[in-house]
């Protein structure tokens, strides 16, 4: 069957069941409630003074009754320094557990050691927001027994609420925790900041293990995860490599290309009329997207504008803007560097939020619904403004859905920033490999070769043209790029669907087919 973006979606997939085709960004939201039934979180009991402490991770896992076919979840707040996920999967594999569904909020390069467990059937399915490196290549080649699901951060929360992701065991790393399981990421030698993605796991998993390298006296404060959800606590020597968990202060790129794009994007935002007192703002963590913040900061200072909140995905650059008084608050679902953890700990207006409050579309107070401006990157964007942030030009999975479609749907102004091509590979093209964010959610594309405005934003286009900005039709830009790069040979795929891209409302916006080797 075709979805509303003309992508072929199977009606049924073994391992996933019936699929619902995407029908528009707000089709399912317009009703005001979710059609699907929700599952209740578990209600657990322990005898008085029962000791939650375990001697090691294996002991804790054994106590949770691991079994074939179980779903195990993790958060990805430890980023490239994560040690916990791989160690946990090693233990489960050594215990002979098979057919595991892995439901990590995302997968990074630090998780590549689990590749053998995918190939040998220990892991048979993955629900995640992103997959990279050799893992991304392997799943695109069809190594998983069942199709993987790529979801947004907000969509993951919805999926847990509906029981689509039914977590048997969650193992959550924390940089500080007490012996009852109250846990945080905001302080400790491996501090990583917000634990926003972990909240839903802690509430809904049948069994919850907290793993920390910093056991503190009871009670641990602050508490991102609370003791009433936790079954077991493990103290380990290290939850990961601190230098890769929370790197140095995030720096603005020096790439002339990225700066050029960022400067143009900031001008577009200024012309849009959204840059005014009380506005809210989200940018990406690097490249041109983060660099936009540098120019917005200059404009805000020059025009004495004070914003309401920064949302994200927060870097130290956002913290600087908070400390300068340019914004009143930060709502933080994920912290990207050490300075952010410190701000979270010490500034009451730097507020940690769970992923559901961040972006679950069926959360009537979700923060993405309040967002004024978001700046997002793209691996590809097509002439209908559909964006791909998940598959590369060779067909492998190499990115993440993340909060892309969540923020794009909610923001008053969504600005996609990217070069029009990279090397010999077109980024602006007639049709993207995989749609993650529908074109209706993207208002403007800013590249080094010009600005393309979605036809639904007639007033903005008029303003930009009158102000003398280099506005182009996106089809003209795609043709211009094609003249430079030539037409690439299409990647060949088999008919086998190895993964689906689930839109935030649970419908399927696209599929990923097996790369023909």
């Amino acid at each position, binding site marked *: 069957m075709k979805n509303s973006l003309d992508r072929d979606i199977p009606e049924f997939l073994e391992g996933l069941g019936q699929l619902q085709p995407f029908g528009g960004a707000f089709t399912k939201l317009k009703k005001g409630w979710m059609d699907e039934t929700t599952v209740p979180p578990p209600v657990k009991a322990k005898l008085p003074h029962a000791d939650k402490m375990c001697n090691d991770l294996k002991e804790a896992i054994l106590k949770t009754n691991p079994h074939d076919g179980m779903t195990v979840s993790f958060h990805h707040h430890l980023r490239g320094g994560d040690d916990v996920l791989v160690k946990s999967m090693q233990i489960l594999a050594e215990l002979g557990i098979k057919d595991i569904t892995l439901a990590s909020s995302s997968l990074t390069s630090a998780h590549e050691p689990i590749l053998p467990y995918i190939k040998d059937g220990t892991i048979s399915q993955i629900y995640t927001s992103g997959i990279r490196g050799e893992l991304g290549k392997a799943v695109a080649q069809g190594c998983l027994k069942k199709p993987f699901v790529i979801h947004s951060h907000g969509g993951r929360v919805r999926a847990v609420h509906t029981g689509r992701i039914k977590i048997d065991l969650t193992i959550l790393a924390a940089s500080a925790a007490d012996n009852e399981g109250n846990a945080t990421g905001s302080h400790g030698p491996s501090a990583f900041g917000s634990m926003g993605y972990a909240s839903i796991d802690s509430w809904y998993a049948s069994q919850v293990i907290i793993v920390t390298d910093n056991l503190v006296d009871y009670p641990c404060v602050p508490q991102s995860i609370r003791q009433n959800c936790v079954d077991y606590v493990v103290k380990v020597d290290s939850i990961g490599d601190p230098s890769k968990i929370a790197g140095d202060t995030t720096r603005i790129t020096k790439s*002339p*290309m990225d*700066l050029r794009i960022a*400067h143009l994007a900031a001008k577009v935002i200024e012309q849009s009329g959204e840059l005014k007192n009380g506005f809210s703002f989200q940018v990406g963590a690097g490249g041109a997207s983060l660099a936009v913040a540098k120019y917005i900061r200059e404009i805000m200072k020059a025009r004495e504008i004070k914003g309401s909140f920064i949302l994200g995905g927060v870097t130290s650059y956002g913290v600087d803007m908070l400390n300068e008084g340019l914004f009143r608050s930060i709502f933080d679902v994920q912290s990207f560097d050490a300075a952010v953890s410190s701000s979270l700990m010490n500034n009451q207006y730097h507020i940690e939020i769970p992923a559901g409050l961040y972006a679950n579309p069926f959360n009537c107070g979700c923060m993405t619904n309040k967002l004024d401006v978001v700046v997002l990157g793209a691996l590809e964007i097509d002439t209908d403004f559909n964006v791909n942030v998940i598959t590369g030009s060779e067909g492998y999975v190499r990115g993440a859905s993340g909060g892309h479609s969540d923020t794009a749907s909610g923001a008053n102004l969504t600005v996609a920033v990217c070069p029009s091509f990279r090397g010999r590979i077109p980024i602006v093209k007639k049709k993207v490999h995989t749609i993650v964010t529908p074109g209706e959610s993207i208002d403007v594309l800013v590249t*080094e*070769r010009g600005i393309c405005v979605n036809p639904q934003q007639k007033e903005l286009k008029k303003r930009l043209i009158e102000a003398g900005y280099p506005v182009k039709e996106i089809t003209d830009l795609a043709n211009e790029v094609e*003249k*430079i790069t030539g037409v690439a040979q299409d990647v060949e795929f088999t008919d086998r669907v190895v993964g689906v891209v689930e839109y935030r409302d649970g419908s399927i916006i696209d599929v990923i087919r097996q790369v023909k080797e």
Partner: protein
Amino acid sequence: MLYIPGNNPAMLQQGGVYGADGILLDLEDAVALNQKDAARILVSHMLKHIDYDTCEVTVRVNHIDTPFGEEDLHAIVPLQPHALRIPKVETTEELQRILDIVHKIEEAHGLPHDQMKLHVMIETALGVENVYKLARFSPRIDAISIGGQDLAADMQLVKANDGIGIDYARKQIVMAAKSCKIDVFDTVYVDVDDEDGLRVEAEYIKKLGFTGKAIINPRQIEIVNDVFTPTEKEIRKAAKIYKAFERNKAEGIGVFAVDGKMVDAPVVQRAIRVLEMADVDLSTL
């Protein structure tokens, strides 16, 4: 003018997007000896296939006394970039030899002899001393530029950031260019991280009369544009002067006052220059 090494395809294909008024595709000093042929081929292809939009494209060829110079001319002249940059020019005899070769190539390809311009680059003390003769040698020459790094080396100057050693040369070259009413471009500022230093130098050379500056990193473009672009205040003042000039001209008055200050022909000329730099259409005033 943004300098781009001729053997760097990524930089070449993106050279026109950064907002520079002109780009210089370099076959000379930015390219290693064993890359000269590759650069020549790459730049030739870029000239044929990349649309640099409104950027003026100049190609710096190797000097004809090097093994590469003549081959460069044979490859590039038929493609007729906006201008050819001739490096290390010292005498009118050299210029004549170059012009003869260019003329022959254009003849062979049925091309006109006045379309592609020449930029003469002064990079030695002898070149500085001869710059008046060089600037007026051919109507095809529409700019002179100074190569500060090579000039400092030729003069055996101890490396200094203050520009004192080449200051006389700068002024000499500006005067020669102005006497021929052609453009004059200043040399590169090599410390790409020192944005304040670049701004100070750009402001100084603007006061000397330079009409542009060489850039080696796109991050420098905005600063140089900012220095050379008239401010809103300057544009408004210039417009006021011009409008007053037109009014007084109609009444046969040549010297008049604007805001209490005398305005005569030179002041009007300066005002027109400001308006031209700001891309103001005089007929709309």
